[in-house]
């Protein structure tokens, strides 16, 4: 019950913040925290609840980002359609990956997902005629809610908050429902779960598909918010690691964890970038060194993440 209280508190604070805060920087941070938190939560559905650890989730993020951007640039239709198309494409891709790599476990599955995201990266950066290649696509700004050309950052906070709540509720569903319990059984011991008649493969595929769809929606909104899609960024392994890092720091398999992780990761990153970004930009790498160390230390000493650590106190 206490975690629900914390979640209600967290989302209420975020939802009410735009009414009080008008500082563009803070609102911008809030939007990004919610987008990265939602992406981490989406990753958590596959990685935390279903145990399908992927380091290729940027593939789905990139599909969403490109779908939204290309709808605006190539066909001049609403990015909301792009968002839906991206989510559909990503969940189809997720289903194919989940279905085909069902027998792969551990590092094999991880490498397979990396390979998929790399194929999409290369495809997007080489197919010049359609995706504009590696120089990326600027997303046109057309004012209006239907075209997602919104200058007011407060509205953006509420839009991504809606997404964050959906991702959170999907995770709560996995914690409380029969399907969620079955999925946990598959994660802990697939053979035992199979012997009890749990449809392991179908559950895993469904979890990956849902996770992929949410990640694509994050990508579409991110593209519209930032206004530029760069294939080397949206399909990068770094981005996949970022999703998993937030989820692991916050707490694998806990609904609020990824959002807490995103708050921490994004804040520390912004602060360190501000501190060291100016003098010799190569010092920017410092925050990534910190992330790497955090990752090593967390999985070793607190594999349940911050949420698990707090629960034990």
């Amino acid at each position, binding site marked *: 019950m206490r975690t629900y209280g914390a979640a209600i508190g967290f989302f209420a604070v975020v939802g009410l913040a735009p009414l009080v805060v008008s500082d563009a920087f803070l609102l911008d941070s809030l939007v990004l925290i919610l987008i990265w938190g939602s992406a981490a939560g989406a990753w958590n559905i596959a990685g935390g609840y279903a*145990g399908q*650890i992927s*380091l290729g989730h940027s593939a789905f993020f990139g599909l969403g980002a490109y779908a939204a951007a290309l709808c605006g640039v190539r066909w001049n239709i609403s990015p909301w359609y792009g968002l839906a198309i991206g989510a559909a494409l990503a969940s189809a891709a997720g289903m194919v990956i989940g279905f*085909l*790599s069902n*027998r*792969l*476990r*551990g*590092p*094999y599955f*991880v*490498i*397979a997902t*990396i*390979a*998929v995201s*790399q*194929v999409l990266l*290369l*495809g997007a950066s*080489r197919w010049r005629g359609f995706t504009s290649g590696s120089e990326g696509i600027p997303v046109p700004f057309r004012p209006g809610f239907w075209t997602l050309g919104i200058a007011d950052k407060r509205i953006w906070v509420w839009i991504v908050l809606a997404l964050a709540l959906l991702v959170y509720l999907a995770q709560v569903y996995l914690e409380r429902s029969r399907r969620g319990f079955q999925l946990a059984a598959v994660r802990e011991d697939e053979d035992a779960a199979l012997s009890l008649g749990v449809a392991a493969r179908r559950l895993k595929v469904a979890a990956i598909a849902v996770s992929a769809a949410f990640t694509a929606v994050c990508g579409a909104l991110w593209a519209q918010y930032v206004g530029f899609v760069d294939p080397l960024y949206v399909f990068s*392994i770094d981005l996949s*690691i970022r999703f*998993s890092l937030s989820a*692991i720091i916050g707490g694998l398999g806990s609904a609020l964890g990824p959002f807490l992780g995103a708050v921490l990761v994004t804040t520390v990153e912004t602060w360190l970038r501000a501190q060291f970004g100016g003098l*010799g930009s*190569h*010092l*920017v*790498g*410092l925050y*990534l*060194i910190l*992330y*790497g*160390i*955090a*990752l*090593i230390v967390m*999985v*070793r000493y607190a*594999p349940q993440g911050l949420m698990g650590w707090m629960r034990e106190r």
Partner: protein
Amino acid sequence: MRVVNFAHGEFLMLGMYAAFWAFTLLHADPYLTLIVAVPLFLAVGWGSYALIMRPIVHTSHNVQVFTTVGLSIVLQNLALVLWTGDARFVRTGYYGEVISIGGAVLNVAQAVAFVLAVAATAALFVFMRWSYTGKLMRATAQDRAAAALMGINTDRIYALTWAVGIACVGAAGVLLAPIYAVYPTAGLQFVLIAYIAVVLGGLGNMVGALIAALIVAAVEVIGSYTIGTGWKEVLYLLLFIAILIVRPAGLFGQRGAEALGM
């Protein structure tokens, strides 16, 4: 060891930087550096094992994956912070020289790298196959508990295996430095090919990996010849995904290994 090291490419990158700095600061030829680099990377490997890998070799795959991913991020960005992101080159005196064998024209550095790599692979194969230590390593990989019961110090064997792996990849980095540009993320492009070759050949199968490496190279060359250099990577990544789906154990690996996560 049954641990997939996602930081493998970063040790390769460190090897390339070792060659670069030895060349720039000490004017040491990369092949001279190699003599120092092998024991150096053995030590680096041993140290990284003791510091980071020892506590997690017996834990779940997911912990191992994220630990080595974390190590990879740290090393990559350490290189970025220390040596900036600029691409650097090792321009030896014989940089432009080529030798032609039959109809094929080879860069001297490429030819030397090829000969040394084949020699190293052969030496490693002999070591793993016939030396006592090599047998201990294979026994430990096959069944850790049984190996421990036979009086093998499995922890030391793990450390040694890890260190030998790092020494090999560090040496590979030194050999690649005169051919390719050196930068913090240089390891990634090579390590993807390495994973593909190893999985295609079957994990834990050295001859398989060697044959698979030749297959991957052939696919790469034929691909860039027929459909253009831009798409060759897509081709071998698709080949890799296809292998994982159709025969995850690789061409010469043991069937079912992938389901055990070995």
